[in-house]
């Protein structure tokens, strides 16, 4: 069988790639996708530990995380559409009204 720490290491690698994408992507939609990637990485760790300790709580948590991700996607993409209508750009560098 597959040792649990393989899954956990894969989860950490995916989370790190999500962080890198979050830092380096310039398109606001791609930044949003990086957040989804990090949520998925955490879900993988949840399921791995749930199977390791033979408890299903972790999988219930994964369902909650998916629900929250769906709600976040709906609201976040609405905000992205508004930003595009106001600034005519999807580049995160252009959205700097709060910058000093």
């Amino acid at each position, binding site marked *: 069988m597959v040792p649990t*720490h393989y899954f956990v290491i894969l989860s950490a690698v995916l989370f790190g790639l999500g962080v890198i994408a979050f830092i380096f992507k310039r398109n606001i939609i791609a930044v949003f996708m990086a957040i989804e990637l990090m949520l998925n990485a955490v879900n993988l760790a949840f399921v*791995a530990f749930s*199977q390791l300790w033979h408890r299903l709580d972790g999988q219930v948590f994964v369902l909650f995380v998916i629900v929250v991700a769906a709600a976040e996607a709906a609201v976040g993409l609405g905000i992205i559409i508004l930003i595009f209508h106001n600034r005519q750009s999807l580049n995160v560098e252009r959205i700097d009204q709060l910058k000093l």
Partner: protein
Amino acid sequence: MNVPLIIFFVLAAMCVLGAVSLILQRHPIHSALSLIVVMVALAGLYLLMGAEFVAAVQIIVYGGAIMVLFVFVIMLLNAGVEERTNMSKLAGFAGIPLAVALTGFLAAAVARSADASQGPLVAGAVAPTKTLSMLLFQDFVYPFELTSFLILIAILGAIVLAQPEK
């Protein structure tokens, strides 16, 4: 090399390649398609661990609903190729080393705790969907009801945000 290990490595390679492709692709629609590859591979990993229900929800909700929403918005806004701008010096120099260090620390810390607790996991030992639903609708029934409020508020928020300006 037993068969589950081979399947794991194939799916893990799909995950990592999809995530790297998400970073390297310049066009958002290509990034979205890479993310779909990651999500389908993750569903395969859940099946490998014996979490069938989570795998099905992953495909339906993530691969279906959320990614369709993303592709829809990309098409609606007619998002083109990402433009390169000069990133801040801090992100350019310290970004990748710090992210790699974070990954290393995370992997080391969490893998040690996984090693210390028990041996390899047995696929399908627990997690019949019936047990999962019992847990969801008995022990976690209040959080479950709260998520329905969350979805309701998210729908209202999306409608308010998408209203045309008066």
